């Protein structure tokens, strides 16, 4: 899967990301939304809240109830995926929630709920990382106070080499996958999973590479957020001028 010149099957070097594109605020009814295209992954995220918690007895007196639901569309995978939530999706919902919640000022919203719905429209490896990255943008779009954007990226081992951002084929055939999420301002790691086989040294190298990957995605993430508000500002300016 890696040729003699060091190129991966899709033409990337070992430390290169797949192309990433963001769109922010394109859902009409959600309080905040984001769309991410990361390689062939296409993922849509909608944020609802702050709003009442359903069911009510789950509400907390000391902080907001923050919940993410990760779900894959039946047509998002090679074989049709049963739309009922699988055990994998339930686990991912849990760990994505736990990766994002440290960034949210939940203590500002006692008795309130914040619900995040993540829909994977097309998947090609690394959907949990793309989902986390997009969710953080959707929360920013919803105007929910956060400490930092959370950004995620995976590294792994393919044919004995440590590589960045595994596609589905590399994940399936490779030896290890290490998705992480960080809050870049403080360098806190809020998601860390691994499966496969790595020595301590390989793990260290892969971990550092994944952090570096996160930093690259972070700058794209910030830029897309900035661009959205620049375009908004310009739109308002033109409107004001035309009224004059």
């Amino acid at each position, binding site marked *: 899967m890696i040729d003699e010149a060091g190129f991966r099957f899709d033409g990337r070097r070992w430390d290169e990301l797949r192309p990433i594109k963001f769109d922010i605020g394109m859902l009409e009814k959600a309080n905040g939304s984001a769309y991410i295209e990361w390689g062939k992954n296409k993922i849509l995220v909608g944020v609802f809240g702050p709003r009442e918690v359903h069911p009510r007895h789950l509400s907390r007196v000391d902080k907001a109830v923050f919940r993410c639901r990760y779900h894959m569309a039946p047509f998002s995978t090679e074989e049709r995926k049963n739309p009922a939530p699988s055990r994998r999706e339930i686990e991912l919902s849990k760990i994505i929630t736990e990766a994002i919640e440290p960034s949210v000022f939940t203590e500002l919203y006692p008795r309130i709920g914040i619900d995040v719905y993540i829909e994977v429209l097309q998947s090609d490896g690394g959907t949990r990382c793309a989902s986390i990255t997009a969710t953080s943008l959707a929360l920013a779009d919803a105007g929910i106070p956060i400490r930092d954007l959370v950004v995620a990226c995976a590294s792994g081992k393919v044919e004995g080499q440590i590589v960045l951002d595994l596609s589905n084929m590399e994940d399936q055939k490779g030896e290890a996958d290490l998705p992480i999420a960080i809050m870049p301002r403080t360098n806190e790691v809020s998601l860390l999973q691994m499966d496969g086989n790595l020595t301590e040294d390989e*793990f260290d190298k892969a971990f550092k590479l994944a952090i570096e990957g996160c930093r690259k995605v972070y700058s794209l993430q910030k830029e897309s957020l900035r661009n959205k508000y620049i375009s908004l500002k310009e739109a308002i300016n033109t409107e004001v001028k035309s009224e004059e």
Partner: protein
Amino acid sequence: MSETFKIMANIKKKQIYDLLSQGRRLDGRGLTDYREIKIETGIIDKALGSALVSLGKTKVVVGIKVETGKPFPDKPDEGVLITNAEFVPLASPDFEPGPPSMESIELARVVDRGIRESKAIDTEKLCIVPETSVFLVFVDIYVLDYDGNLFDTSALASMLALLTAKMQDYIVKENGNLEFKDELINLPIMDYPIEVTIAKIGDKLVVDPSLEEELSLDAQITIALTKNDEICAIQKSNLGTFNYEEVADAVKIAKKKARELREKFLKGYIANE
């Protein structure tokens, strides 16, 4: 085990933090000590293999069953490992009857990952007729008493149950049917992963959090290591975060503890290689 019901007195939480700042723990353990571990194997005759592990007051029993069934289309010549965890209501006031909780699914998947990714079971040896029939190995985790650190308890019990499991020897007839013989054989086990859970409380890393520590911790990480000290699975769970140095330290601690546990509890069951 919905988070709503988890309640911890602030005064106790403070006590845990204060003690830790002096390098001590509520139950008198050192920071990298496990609670007392007791193991018992072969306690369920109807299961092919079984083990009851208690870690302090946490108790988990694991039973192994093997059935025949169809392989997955992408792995037509490999047997299948199926891991399931039940949080039975008698184990904790926070466990309720009903569909599996997020926590029980996570537990089963983290234990499964340790066994699967270390290649503990030689699944190719569990193939009967490629594409048609293979053995399915069921690892059923039954939590009997919950006093913290289900990951390590369940992973150890699962490995012990797999190591002591015996199935009937068989021959595959020409039509693909099985003919069972009287002799018993071991399951094809190739590795002996150990999972080590480390909690971050304040700025301290502690091994094997008790329930009280689980309810006060800032973050938690479970690391599975193979017999060759390689990392085969990691799961950060719970809210809270680690920094780079803490993760590197946790890996070092886990490596040392996994070696100790394997030597002490699995070695006697490992057939000579």
